[in-house]
């Protein structure tokens, strides 16, 4: 699971052979920057590759060869002999191709790339993969029109006017200089500078009622990002419910009995936390503070009242 494990092993060696060959000659520094690894790792990989060879019939080895003087004296890598991987390489594994295709499925709609180009790229990736069962799939979500407007506004640096309904408040018009679209677990968020409140804000796309570009001037300076957390709450939940609350978690879950765990969650909006806890369907309980416990109780009582009212209304038949 550790990221640094990836560049170990033979993956880097194989890629480096192709990279150096295609480049003709590169410095260790360039290669390290290209692959994003320390220079020493590149030197080790070079030494390893060029000590290896293919056994010939007589039991000797035909070895990879480089310009050793250039390497030792000037840190320059230049391949002179390749006994293997002359014109072939290791293809993408089925899962690597799946990761690329699935990622493409999730984001391509937000990029403005022509659908036929994306489809062609997907086919090309399939062809570039070795055979195997299709073991990863993702559903393609339709890209909301608002996301396209925001994407273009970010690119063109245009200020947007949005009608936004913050949880528990009436809808309000906000002028926003959008900076980034954040696709997070199936939800789309817009990060931007709220020009009226003079602060950085994050907006949920599915809470935007209306959106339009304005002719307002793009701000010269962007405000600092700030994050205000009102406090923390303690929750006891089943393991599955705790996983649902992980976005709010301020602590690792600690087991309280065989089935349940205790965790602290950040309260930056009471209404949001109540909804998140309620959406665990009764598998999470607020233990403290007492005021939030009471609010959770009230939330359920009010919702039951509403539901009861509806049942009453429709049971007259």
């Amino acid at each position, binding site marked *: 699971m550790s990221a640094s494990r*990836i560049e170990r092993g033979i993956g880097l060696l194989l890629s480096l052979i192709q990279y150096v060959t295609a480049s003709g000659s590169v410095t260790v520094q360039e290669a390290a920057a290209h692959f994003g690894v320390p220079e020493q790792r590149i030197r080790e990989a070079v030494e390893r590759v060029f000590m290896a060879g293919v056994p010939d019939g007589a039991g000797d080895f035909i070895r990879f060869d480089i310009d050793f003087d250039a390497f030792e004296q000037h840190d320059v890598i230049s391949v002179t002999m390749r006994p293997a991987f002359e014109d072939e390489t290791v293809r993408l594994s089925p899962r690597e191709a799946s990761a690329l295709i699935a990622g493409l499925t999730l984001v391509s709609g937000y990029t403005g790339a022509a659908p036929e180009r994306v489809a062609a790229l997907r086919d090309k990736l399939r062809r570039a993969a070795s*055979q195997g069962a299709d073991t990863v*799939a*993702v559903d393609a979500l339709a890209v909301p029109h608002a996301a396209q407007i925001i994407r273009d506004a970010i690119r063109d640096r245009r200020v947007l006017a949005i009608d936004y309904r913050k949880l528990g408040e009436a809808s309000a018009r906000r002028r926003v200089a959008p900076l980034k679209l954040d696709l*997070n677990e199936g939800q789309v968020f817009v990060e931007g500078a709220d020009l009226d409140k003079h602060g950085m804000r994050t907006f949920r796309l599915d809470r935007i009622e209306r959106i339009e570009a304005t002719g307002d001037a793009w701000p010269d300076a962007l405000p600092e990002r700030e994050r205000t957390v009102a406090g923390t709450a303690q929750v006891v939940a089943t393991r599955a419910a705790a996983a649902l609350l992980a976005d709010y978690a301020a602590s690792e879950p600690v087991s309280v009995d065989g089935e349940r765990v205790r965790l602290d969650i950040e309260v930056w909006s009471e209404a949001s936390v109540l909804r998140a806890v309620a*959406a665990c369907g009764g598998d999470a309980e607020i233990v403290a503070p007492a005021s939030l416990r009471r609010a959770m109780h009230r939330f359920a009582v009010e919702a039951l009242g509403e539901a009861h009212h509806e049942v009453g209304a429709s049971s007259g038949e």
Partner: protein
Amino acid sequence: MSRIEAEERQFSLLLALVDTSVGFTKQELFTRVAGYQGQAVGDALERMFERDKDALRDHGIVIDVVQPPGDDSNQEARYRVLDGVLGSPAELQFDAEERDLLDLALRVWHEGGLTEESQRAALKLRADPEFRGGLPLERTPGRTSEPSGDGAGPATATILQPRQRARESAFQALKRAADRRREVVFDYLKPGERMARSRTVQPWATVLFRGRWMLVGHDVGAEDSRTFLMQRIVSPVRDRAARQPFEVPADAASAALAKLEQIWASASVGVHALPGSDADIRLRHRRGTTEEDGLLVVHHADRHLIADEFTGFGSDVAIAWPAEQRELVRQRLQRIRDAHAEHREEPAS
């Protein structure tokens, strides 16, 4: 260091296997591959060979064993790289627009889930000197965004930040088991149930549907294919040799996705949403929602999961139909009410 030796040995093994069209017997490999040479033939060497084959498989290099007809001693079996593992470097070269898209596609798997595959894929794509995208191979603490490589205009990755986390710790274990055709055993808390139950599953595929990761496989106990929410796997995933050897259906992932879409299309709930409320706006934005006689008709893939979501909307929503769905939400609200009743409150002040 042992990792350096292993890396050299595996590379040497790969070179030997790439160089042969008919394959090598194990004995031939043991005498030809640097790192095996000079070692006593025995269990330790055999285990080393198995580990190296596993390591190569992680890079997508599958080693095929060809057993000569009539030989079951395993001594004459020949090892070679499976056809189709090697291809032309040109297949992995992409133009500027494609590189931009691939960069973004790889960033989706910024953490968890498919991160490892994405990093390996990025490593392969970077064999092309023009490709600079994808995930950093080594994370630099404190640095969350990578400088964009190409100078022309804002790179798409600076506009769009895609992330698809899979915190589900089960993910890696399930993928490994699926690759190796091993069965998995785990405790599963089915939506709507209070007690987790142990399941034995032949893992087939992982599917992301409406933002949730799922495992698709053959449930050995139920003797049928099943879909499991990864978030509800509540124990570590153990793997073991399958009692019955199994093959993954070629279209396992896409078939499961199609089935989920079908369920989503056919399952619906009629809801009153308080006009202009958070629930109203969000449910209207939900995939497939329509409006009929003043009711929102909302689609879902599981009545318990949608019941949880409705519970989260509190008094903003009231379920009109079906009655069973209304009851599921009511039970949840009652549990929340009872769990948060006064008498459980701390005695302080």
